């Protein structure tokens, strides 16, 4: 076991997979000599050279589309979108081309593409750009959850970042990989020795408990754990489930937990309306209804653009808000 930062885990996954398979390549803005704006691709250029670590013009649709073409030819490109917010200009390529190619070619063509997206609010204040406002702080995962043909992954720890990114690169489908950028330089934890793969489509119970299930994604997992620790003192026992992969969703783990606790709180960083929390809630309300003892609560960002600076904190799903939601259910 080695203590590793979240960003180092990403970097390690890229190193390992590029070492393993000569057709894994990295493409994006400033990923080569600069090693990525946040440093996720550091040293790759030195190790693997310009043919495999490719800097491009500022043309997200162009280079994402090019990566799709490479993937269709069987290569395994890993795209870095510098900030997840910028994926809006490449959205067409992902939803129109990548997501539908397998279907359109009746399975003849696969698109083994990974798109890495640093997302979310950097509340930690570490790394490049804190409090970066409406165009550098968004959590757009749910747009992609609503595009059939894409998979969507969201690791909350260094070990998951490593193991899920490796699995994403090996997957035959386009995988949208959301990295919470506030965790890059603040989330440090042990990762297993040797090759570490986390399969896509499996949730993880981060903490067992009996009173309320909290389903949390990304940076909210740590927030939920902090709330759980605090509530322990009051004799309130939280079970924390991290879906890790949003599509395909591990419904079973979520439903099993809710069957035990009978209560669910869902928390994510994106605004509540039409966010992925709604999907989780709908799954529980459809398939876990008989177990429910209380309403399902969502604790998410407010429905508004992400404010700049510290004002963002007023709009976030804080520990206080999670705690309040839990208490309301009991």
């Amino acid at each position, binding site marked *: 076991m080695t203590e590793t930062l979240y960003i180092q885990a990403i970097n390690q996954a890229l190193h390992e997979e590029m070492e393993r398979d000569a057709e894994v390549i990295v493409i994006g803005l400033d990923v080569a000599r600069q090693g990525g704006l946040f440093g996720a691709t550091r040293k790759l250029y030195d190790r693997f050279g310009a043919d495999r670590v490719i800097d491009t013009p500022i043309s997200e649709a162009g280079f994402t*589309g090019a990566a799709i073409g490479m993937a*269709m030819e069987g290569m395994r490109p890993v795209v870095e979108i510098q900030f997840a917010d910028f994926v809006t200009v490449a959205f067409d390529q992902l939803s129109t081309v990548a997501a539908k190619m397998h279907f359109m070619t009746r399975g003849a063509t696969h698109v083994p593409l990974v798109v890495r997206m640093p997302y979310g609010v950097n509340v930690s204040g570490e790394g490049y750009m804190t409090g970066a406002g409406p165009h550098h702080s968004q959590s757009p995962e749910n747009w992609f959850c609503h595009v059939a043909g894409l998979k969507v992954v969201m690791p909350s720890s260094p070990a998951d970042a490593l193991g899920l990114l490796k699995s994403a690169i090996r997957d035959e489908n386009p995988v949208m990989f959301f990295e919470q950028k506030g965790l890059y330089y603040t989330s440090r934890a042990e990762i297993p020795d040797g090759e570490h793969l986390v399969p896509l489509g499996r949730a993880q119970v981060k903490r067992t408990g009996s009173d309320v299930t909290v389903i949390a994604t990304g940076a909210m997992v740590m927030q939920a754990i902090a709330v759980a620790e605090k509530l322990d003192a009051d004799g309130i026992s939280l079970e924390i489930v991290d879906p890790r992969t949003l599509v395909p969703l591990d419904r079973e783990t979520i439903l099993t937990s809710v069957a035990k606790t009978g209560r669910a709180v869902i928390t994510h960083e994106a605004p509540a309306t039409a966010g992925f929390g709604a999907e989780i809630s709908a799954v529980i309300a459809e398939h876990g209804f008989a177990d429910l003892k209380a309403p399902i609560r969502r604790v998410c960002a407010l429905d508004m653009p992400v404010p700049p600076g510290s004002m963002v904190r007023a709009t976030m799903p804080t520990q206080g808000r999670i705690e309040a939601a839990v208490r309301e259910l009991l």
Partner: protein
Amino acid sequence: MALNEEQLIAMYRALAGSRSAEHEITELNKQGVLSGHHSGLGHEAIGVGVGFAVRPDDCVQMSHRSGMMLAHARGGYSLSDAVLSQFGQAPSHYAQTEGGPRTCSIVGLVGTWVPMSVGIAMADRFRGKDTVTVTFFGDGAANEGAVHEAMNLAGTRRLPIVFVIENNGFAVSMPTSEATAAEDFASRAAGYGMPGVTVDGHDALAVYEVATQALARARAGRGPTLVEAVITRWEPHAQGIADLRSAEEMAEARIRDGAQILRAALIERGLLDEAAAAAIQAQIDEEIRAACEQGQSTKHASAEPAPMTPEAAAALTYA
């Protein structure tokens, strides 16, 4: 690489055949036997000219206009296939067929497929192949941002790719002259550091020549070329959409005729005479007639499909 006599006759055969098949399909649409076709009448010489210039292992991404002609000219896609595909009884010319020339699917948004073509060229280069990717799109699609990004990216990496703009003067109802103030599309090439050539798209030999040069350049590692093939759209944008042109304008659009131009050229060179041309046409007509008959006779009423399961949906959607 000048074409020899045999190849020139083959080219004429392909062009005359494509024209006839396209004509028949267009007519079947007008009669309501088929529906929704984007007629390629007028565009045939582009598909045939490029089709003869590319190698089977070059990857071609076809447009909704000259795609069928191109597939036919490359070989392995008969006129009968072309007609039957319209009845859902043969694969579309967009699809890669087992052992057929290398082809890449397009998508329904114009312009959107051009970055993917660039990626294919990148993959081929990465793997050390000497193949070239050729990607077709229209004058209208050329104004999409994705096309700009793709061409610029290709320029920076001197990729083995040829961009072919089928400039037919319109995008649905929008005249090209109102859709850009540029004198021509070839003028955009300089902005991406590649040569731009405008060619008469009705002249299969001229198209062939320009394509051959662009392919050679790309294969030699000297980078991409932008080819603008200027033609006229003979028919409305698609079956079911009114054409705003007057009857005179529509008639004028048909004056330049790729099949006649090639035929005249071959006759002038003494490679073809009226009798030989008539014999070729008779074979073509027979093949198309038979295909139409087959298509129409086996056209079945589409039964209400049984509801699909989520599992089946997932299997179609994900690898």
